[in-house]
């Protein structure tokens, strides 16, 4: 018994050390958002000091500090009340990302059902082209995206990001993987009972894949919530750009409130995680092949 307990404790310690290393940056972001702006500048200002601007900082070193000297909400109040810019950009993010996630996942469910129910050469070729597209770096797909947006005259509008986002093959691939795991007998018996394909899709496949669909939606959300490349090229109008672009370049003037903005930006992801972690953890028991 004692030997078992020692083993259990030592495993806990090893896993704990790794796990804490993983969560430290998140904790740091949250605790530092409660520091005063002067304290932030004193700790991290050095990162942004150039030779050009001769500012003097309290210390020449970068201090990694977890606990604020004085807990203060001043960062939050300046973000929320003094600079409405951040809130506008936050809203920009929402109206870009939410339609993309909903539409991409809906199209993906339909496509995945098509890919699951029927086999054949044509299907294999189409699916293979999806896999290739999915693996392409943004910089490759951005070229065609840019060309199409130009032709359709939607460059520099939100649609230039939403349309390609709707049809991005990543979630088709993921959801097809999971739909394939639904036992064939289940579908066949529904068919014998006279269900139409649409009914089988709606009443059997969707509920069976709930976890997979939700976890896919989460991954797509997080991915687009942090997008930088697409808006920079397809939506150069700064007034329409999402907060992720705005946040990506923090300069020394804004370092004081950077952490509070980051925490505010993190909240939607955080809520999704708290709500959906079980789905993520259990809904994706994966089996099957790359070919789908």
């Amino acid at each position, binding site marked *: 018994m004692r030997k078992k307990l020692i083993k259990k404790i030592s495993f806990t310690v090893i896993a704990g050390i790794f796990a804490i290393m993983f969560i430290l940056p998140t904790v740091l972001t949250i605790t530092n958002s409660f520091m005063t702006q002067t304290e932030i500048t004193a700790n991290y200002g050095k*990162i942004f000091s150039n030779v050009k601007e001769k500012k003097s900082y309290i210390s020449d070193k970068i201090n990694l500090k977890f606990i604020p000297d004085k807990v203060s909400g001043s960062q939050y109040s300046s973000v929320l009340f003094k600079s409405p810019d951040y809130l506008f950009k936050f809203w920009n993010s929402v109206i870009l990302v939410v339609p993309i996630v909903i539409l991409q996942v809906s199209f993906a469910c339909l496509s995945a059902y098509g890919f699951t129910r029927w086999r054949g050469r044509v299907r294999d070729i189409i699916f293979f082209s999806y896999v290739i597209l999915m693996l392409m770096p943004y*910089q490759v797909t951005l070229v*065609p995206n840019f060309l199409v947006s130009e032709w359709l005259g939607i460059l520099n509008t939100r649609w230039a990001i939403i349309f390609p986002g709707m049809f991005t093959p990543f979630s088709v691939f993921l959801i097809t993987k999971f739909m394939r795991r639904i036992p064939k007998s289940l579908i066949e018996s529904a068919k014998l009972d006279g269900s139409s394909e649409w009914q089988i899709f709606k009443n059997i496949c969707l509920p069976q894949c709930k976890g997979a669909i939700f976890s896919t939606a989460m991954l797509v959300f997080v991915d687009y919530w942090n997008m930088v490349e697409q808006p920079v090229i397809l939506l150069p109008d700064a007034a329409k750009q999402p907060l992720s672009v705005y946040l990506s370049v*923090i300069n020394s003037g804004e370092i004081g409130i950077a952490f509070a903005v980051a925490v505010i*930006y993190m909240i939607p992801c955080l809520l999704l995680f708290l709500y959906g972690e079980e789905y993520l953890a259990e809904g994706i028991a994966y089996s099957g092949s790359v070919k789908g």
Partner: protein
Amino acid sequence: MKLINKKGSSVSRSSHNKKLFHKPGRDFLTSLGFTGPGFAGVLIFFIAPFAVVVYYSFTRGVLDHTFTGMQNYSNVVHNSAFQLAMRNTFKFTIAAVPLAVVLSLFLALLLEQKMFGKSQWRTFFLSPIMVPIASTILVWQVLFHSGGVINDFIAIFGVDKIDWLKSEYCLVVIVILFLWKNLGYNMILFMAALNNIPKTLLEAADVEGASAIHKFVHIKLRYLSPTILFVAILSIINSFKVFREIYLLSGDYPYDGLYMLQHFMNNMFRTLDYQRLSAAAVILALIMIGIIALLFVVENKFGKDIEG
């Protein structure tokens, strides 16, 4: 499932004969009804314009459609920036992807053991996914700046300051960032796959006195092989996304060791050098097709026996 219970009656019996024996070709049409709308979008927004990109790559430019053969390609291939970017991207991928697979499998096996606080640790490992990119960058700068925390730490052992992002170690910094971000989700995938291994098989092995290593190699690895491939594919996708972080950490023209293919593409985008951009995009696409084909071959070789 409700549907089956509701509709078990004679009404459906009459219709099912028709449905079961419909003509060949109808399957294809119905399938088109589901896959079609999505595929139309993919065709319009990805495949068709990509065909145009391929066409551009053989011409002199967007306005001048003179056919130039392989001229653009040889320009790109002989460009020293392209070669540098190619080398660096290759180095990064070859280091990061296998590490992402092996370490996440290690973490999944670790979390499989009996311990306290298992589900908390799992959440901790997943947490990097939700951290906004800006905070990631900030934290990495705090850690790896020349006056940063890591240098303070190694100074204890008498090691000199290293300007991490501007030294030969820069790739290490990025690999660590990549692993920190992606290990959690990969680990979850492995945990799910480990859960799916039939318990009876492992128990039978125990009865026959198989060692832990034997069980791992002959049972677990066999069952995990599709997941290993899946994680490898996801890691390749994500390895291309890490450019975002590199870009934000070091800008348009970073230290030589961090100059990636994506920098090359981005800079050409900025100068609107469409011909070379197209040629580079086609080259990248061909490389990806090669990698995928390789993965398929590997899967056909090893994945078959457990697919059932």
